[in-house]
């Protein structure tokens, strides 16, 4: 259990692009452009470059936070075949841990007066 914890903590903090990737995949399997579209829809964060994102994908696949799903037709891209990715259990835990970490920091920022109470973080 403890070792598990440490394995998760080793990934923290996540880079924004990594967090966004996990966030998207947590909702379901996505192909590359799908992830970018998700980020665009979330609005606040700058949209990462494609190369940046794929380098992150490669790294995260190596770390087994995500894994490749079957290549299949993508309904949103004229049914051309695309590489899909899915989140692993480890990836989900890392994403949750990162979210908790961010939440704690936000709370601290609020208590410290850096952010106004009740404001959108």
């Amino acid at each position: 259990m403890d070792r598990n914890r440490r394995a998760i903590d080793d990934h923290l903090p996540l880079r924004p692009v990594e967090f966004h990737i996990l966030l998207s995949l947590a909702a379901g399997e996505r192909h590359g452009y799908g992830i970018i579209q998700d980020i665009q829809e979330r609005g606040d964060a700058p949209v990462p470059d494609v190369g940046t994102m794929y380098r992150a994908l490669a790294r995260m696949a190596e770390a087994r936070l995500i894994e490749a799903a079957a290549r299949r037709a993508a309904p949103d891209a004229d049914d051309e075949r695309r590489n899909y990715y899915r989140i692993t259990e480890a990836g989900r835990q890392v994403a949750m841990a990162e979210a908790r970490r961010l939440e704690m920091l936000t709370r601290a920022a609020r208590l410290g007066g850096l952010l106004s109470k009740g404001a959108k973080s």
Partner: protein
Amino acid sequence: MTGDRLVNVSERWFRLLQRLYPPDFRDDMGDAVVETYRDRARDELRRGGILRLSLLWIRALVDSLRNGPGERARPAISWRRGGNWGRDVEVATRRLLRARTFALVTIGTLTIGLGMVAVVYTFVYKILLEPMPYRDSSDLYYVWRDYGSIVDLKRAQLAGPDLAELRKNTAVIEEVAAMQQFLGGIFALKEGGDPTEIAVTNVTPSFFTLLDVHPLLGRVFAPNETGRGKPNLIVLTHGLWNRIGADPTIVGGQVRLQGNAYTVIGVLPPTFSFVRDEAAGSSKRIEAFVTFGFDLDTQRPDQSMVSVLIRARHGASPQAVASAVDAAGRTVDARDFNNRGLRLYPVAIKTDVVARARPALLVLAAAGALLALMLTVNLASVLLARAAQREHEFAVYRALGASDRTVMRATLFEGGLLGLAGGASGALLAIWATRALVALTPLDLPRRDGIAVDWTIGGVMIVLGATLGLLAALVPAMWATRTALSSLLASSAVRGGGGHGRMRRGMIVTQVALSLVLLSSGGLVVRGVERLIRADPGFQAEGVLTFRVRSPPEFFPKPADLVGFQDRVERTLAEIPGVTGVSATSALPLTASAAPMTISFPGAPGNTGSPEHDTPLVDMIGTRASYVKVMGMRIIAGRAFDPVRVDGRQEALIDRQLAAQFFPNGDPIGAKIPLGRRGFRTATDYTYQPADAYTIVGVVDQARQYDVHQDGRPQLYIRTEDWGFRPLSFVVRSAQDPESLILQARAALKKIEPRVAMGDVRTMEQIVGDLLRQQRTSAAVIAALAIGALLLAAMGLFGVVSSSVTRRKHEIAVRLALGADHRRVLRLVLGEGALMVAIGVLIGVPGVYAAGRLIRGLLVGISPLDPVALAAAAIGLGLVTMAACYVPAKRVLGIDPAQSLRQE
């Protein structure tokens, strides 16, 4: 331009940008990146037309310029760039894990083989190669005298005045130190304290500066603390200091040496050890150091009395040192020897110390190298067999487009991994085996204490294992790349066979040849040692206890005191129940401790008038009256010493050699030998009588001083009383186990004289055993290496015959079906093995001859072509290899042709 065309042009741009990324990333991710950009390009075009699309182009360029080189610079994966090595390792490991028996047997073989190689390497490295533990030890040299034609002494000690001569050449020689021939001493913590015998030597103060030793406690000698009339000072080694209680306050206190008070001025660090290697005898670890009580410069120039160490100036070449020493020698020769040809020469300290062990170690190293070679060939043949099984697989790989390099790499990795594992476990095995073997080696083996496997040796073994594995895999790897698609089609008809079979048989032949070489060498060495063990050293060793009793002039100043004490010791020892005889000698057999001196036989018929012939150098041995009888020596003519000594009548015994040389036809009994101050004499602390005539009363066979199997220098025996020899070694013969007498002997000695101690207590059989230990150990190691080699060859043969039976099952079944009987078929298969053995033996014969010449130095009393040893090796090889063929070949007897053919 239509949207689709724009998207396609964009895609080409994106694909072009991919070039900025490293190839492996491109392989994995390139398509996906391009697809994603393409999706995005389509969206941008839809939303904002060409303008937004061109912005995306620029953005893609910036993205690739940033991330492409960034990815290329990523170190963690750059190692993969050269090819997919990581995956190869993984695949090779997995494949080995699947073939567990194969992996275990192979690694097991390598472990034992490389373990043996590691043990040999450890001994060779630690003794021959590792630098001595002194600062800049390559600048240290011993200096010896070669007396040339003056007298037959090629490696004699130096005389006192030689030191000053060496010191003069300060350009080459930085420091000169002298130590006296090993000198035992009776040591006690205080007056009347329990005496023990220690190995103490006197040294010049420069000894410690020369070796660059700094004391743990106190100090070492100052330059002016040596010579006549200086206070008695002693420096203790850490070992002795520990043994006497490790008391730090001992510095400044007094101890007793030979009854005299000595002030302890220092204790040396535990890392310091100095072993004096005697010119011919055994080396001794020095336990304490004292200074000279006399001035070396004023000693007689013809008296060899000190061993001399020099430190050359750093950077001086060995040639420069040799010529500097030689120049000093010429001065000495001109001044003291009328240019009769005395030489001085230096020997590097390590060369000098290891000289005795070197020949045996070189042979062991050669045997170890041969075994490593055998292991390589063996592994190569095993891997080749395995590659042959996978022939089909390789052919499919290649058909699917795998390159030559991929197929080669797969095989190389397998070999490398096996070798690596074998090397590592071999090194582990060697840790234990080295410890066990060191216990078997003689105590005076040079540098014995340091012999152990260390990290460097472990590392070397692992690298050696991996290299050996890679080398071994090279042959099958080359072969595997040659397997063509055609073998896919052909294999079902021909069933393997093909090129690899010939290669494998070639390897077996090589192994047989190599193991014959090792076996014959092993046989020769073992037989040589067996000869030694059975050799007659000229006395009867069984049942004799020996020990040295020091009787220093400090305790027994007058000759009468000395003789009286020695008489008392002999009488008291004789009273111990069970003792059948007691005597004493100045030089026990096989200890190389006799004093060499020149003698002459005036008027003997064998004299030729040439001084070199007429004044031979002999070993002078003092004995008490009954020594010849107690030791069981053989009298050839005349008689032994009279049991009762008559004053003024000096008796002598000569050996067979002297009798034959000087009295070829006549009778030496009654001839006279003048012994006195004439001619050359080595350093002794004997009290000299004026020149006296000694009368030869008998001729004996040598009680050999140096080797069990051959006579050494001619021997001359006189009575100890006539020369005042001291110390004496007593010999006590009894019917019971001699070791059971030690306690009683010690008690008897203590009763007579509490100030003296027994030293070097050994049975005569132990003395013989110690002398033969080095030969025995090297014989055991060589025999083990040879048997290892034989087993390897047998394993290889087993494998080849076994796979041949499997491969030819169909053919054999056909033969059986056509009427051949089983025995005939068995002969056929066996014949194949026998042919390989025969060819191997033929190829091995020149190797046997060469190896025999190489090890000639180790062989005592037998020829390198000894027929018994060589025949035994050949027969042993034949039996084992034929058994290795027969066991798998027997399977043909079980082949039922009908069933076998039906399966087809």
